[in-house]
């Protein structure tokens, strides 16, 4: 991809080919209903210049509708969209100056690579000579310099993706919208492109809005992630905020994996509380209303460890190994507690070179601040 010599898109580039700076975007109470069904329900988001924001959600969460409204292909039923304080709610897409990389890239099949990249400059009535030199520069930067005369169908998926990116950036847009741009690439290439996109974003300082259903992409690239469900914002924050402090069961489950521990609060302690899960009493830091109330705790598999004889943790349970898998970096274990509750845990292989056998009884444990209390939804 663009990685040679410190990234070619992000590396030494001639002046004023690619956009600099970027647009601020504000969505104010935006809704869209289709025949009475709300696809997007009262969403407000403010994006600062140069931010990398990911709209994350399962299919049907309204993330694509939201992106289509920002791009101008869908008109909101209610609310306002402001681009650098300019109200663009009803502006047609061609007046918004936004770059967009579509899912599947939407390259024009009857035009060459150079023709595709020249298109946004041609419709802006730029002089022919300037178009030619800009197209050449941009293609050079995405390492497609020699492929300008090819047709899209003659390129690999990764090359097509770079053409789409070059086409979306060549006219210096205020904002770059990306609609699941990596979904057509294979796993290894996807990881490379994630790095490249992140580097490109840092280099250009352009506002990126990235839509995906892949939590891994969202966590790895974004400054901020907005989690959507049923057309509403469930939670937004930095990737680590969302991962470490999910507010609801949905967020804890959608971003990464979680065990869910339903408990009954027994007593309030200094810095925390104790609660009952089946036969066991467990401890958790944080505030809880009063004894007798119900609590739901989300517990990441990698925060649980196998307790050896010489260690003592605030929360300990005896459990039987039901199943395990090996991924090279870690063992994933599925265990059954004495109350017949299943817990999954991830143990890095550098800590534990061999895995307990299926049926073996082990002690598992976690720290008092390992879990986080979430809302059932």
């Amino acid at each position, binding site marked *: 991809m663009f990685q040679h010599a410190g990234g070619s898109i992000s590396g030494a580039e001639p002046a004023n080919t690619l956009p600099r700076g970027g647009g601020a975007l504000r969505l104010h109470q935006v809704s869209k209903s289709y025949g009475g069904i709300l696809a997007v329900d009262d969403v407000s988001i403010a994006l600062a210049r140069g931010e990398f924001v990911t709209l994350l959600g399962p299919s049907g969460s309204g993330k694509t509708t939201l992106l289509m409204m920002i*791009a101008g292909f869908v008109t909101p039923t209610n609310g306002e969209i402001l681009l650098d304080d300019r109200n663009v709610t009803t502006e*047609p*897409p*061609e007046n*918004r100056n936004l770059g967009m990389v579509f*899912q*599947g890239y*939407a390259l024009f*099949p009857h035009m060459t690579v150079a023709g595709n990249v020249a298109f946004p400059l041609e419709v802006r009535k730029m002089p022919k000579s300037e178009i030619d030199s800009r197209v050449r520069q941009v293609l050079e930067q995405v390492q497609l310099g020699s492929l300008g005369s090819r*047709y899209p169908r003659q390129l690999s998926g990764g090359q097509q993706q770079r053409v789409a990116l070059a086409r979306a950036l060549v006219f210096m847009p205020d904002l770059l919208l990306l609609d699941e741009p990596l979904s057509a690439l294979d796993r290894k290439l996807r990881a490379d492109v994630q790095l490249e996109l992140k580097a490109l974003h840092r280099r250009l300082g352009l506002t990126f809005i990235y839509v995906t259903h892949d939590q891994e992409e969202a966590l790895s690239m974004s400054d901020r992630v907005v989690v959507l469900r049923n057309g509403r914002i469930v939670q937004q924050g930095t990737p680590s905020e969302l991962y470490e402090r999910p507010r609801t069961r949905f967020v804890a489950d959608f971003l990464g994996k979680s065990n869910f521990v339903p408990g009954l609060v027994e007593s309030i302690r200094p810095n925390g509380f104790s609660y009952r899960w089946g036969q066991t009493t467990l401890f958790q830091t944080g505030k809880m209303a009063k004894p007798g109330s119900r609590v739901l705790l989300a517990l990441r598999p990698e925060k649980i460890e196998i307790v050896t004889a010489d260690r003592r943790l605030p929360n300990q349970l005896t459990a039987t190994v039901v199943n395990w898998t090996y991924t090279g970096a870690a063992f994933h274990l599925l265990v059954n507690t004495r109350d017949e509750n299943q817990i999954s845990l991830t143990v890095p292989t550098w800590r534990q070179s061999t895995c307990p056998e299926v049926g073996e009884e082990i002690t598992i444990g976690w720290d008092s601040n390992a879990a986080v209390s979430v809302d059932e939804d």
Partner: protein
Amino acid sequence: MIELPTSRSFQVTTFWAWIGLLFLFLPLIVIVPVSFTPNRWLSLPGTDWSLQHYADLIGDETWRRSALDSAIIAFAATFAATTLGTIGAIGCWRVSSGLSDAARALMLVPIVIPSIVDALGFYQALVQFRLTDTYFGVIIAHTMKGIPYVVISVSAALANFDLRLEQAARGLGANMMLAVRRIVLPAIWPGIMAGAFFAFITSWDDLVINLFIAGRRVSTLPRRIWNSIQDNIDPAVASVATLLMLVTLCGILVYLMLERHNAALDQKEAG
């Protein structure tokens, strides 16, 4: 090639397939020798074959004029039907609502209604404007008969068109007209051409409408053939028919060759 099994049932099927083909083509093929008869009436030539009727045809001013009339009308009607039909189909596709579906269905009506009913309607309407027996009148009528074929084939092409391509064009700064011209039209071009082909055939082939609204000043080939079989059965008719078949055959051959050429080009590029 794949070697097919020659079982008994397969032989029977082949036999009937040939019968079917002969059924389709014999009436056409029999015309060809008739056109070479030396006699002045419709008959199969014996040992003498003659080009006399072809010579008559070329020498006859009225036949030449009819051929010209047919060509003028067919080309003009094809152009008008293709333009209007394409615009109509794109409009319905862009709006894409219950109303536009209804509009598209209405545009297909001329195919469904029997030609003779249509022709009567055209006659009534054109008389009002004194357009009977004029090029303009016949072209209007043929355009309306051709539009449905264009709408059908362009709509089919649009159904396969990736909407994101148009969105991409708009997002990159093209207004709707420009996006249609630069992106949509090239993508649906084969559909437009197919529609144009059918519109052309419809006009070229039409007799019924011509019988109602034209005849003296404007007389197309089918109309001229009709007239000449009514007066006396002149073998020149067979010559015209043969020539028409030859022209059509050439058209199809050129089309097939172009298609093969394009396919070969595609493969070369892809490889």
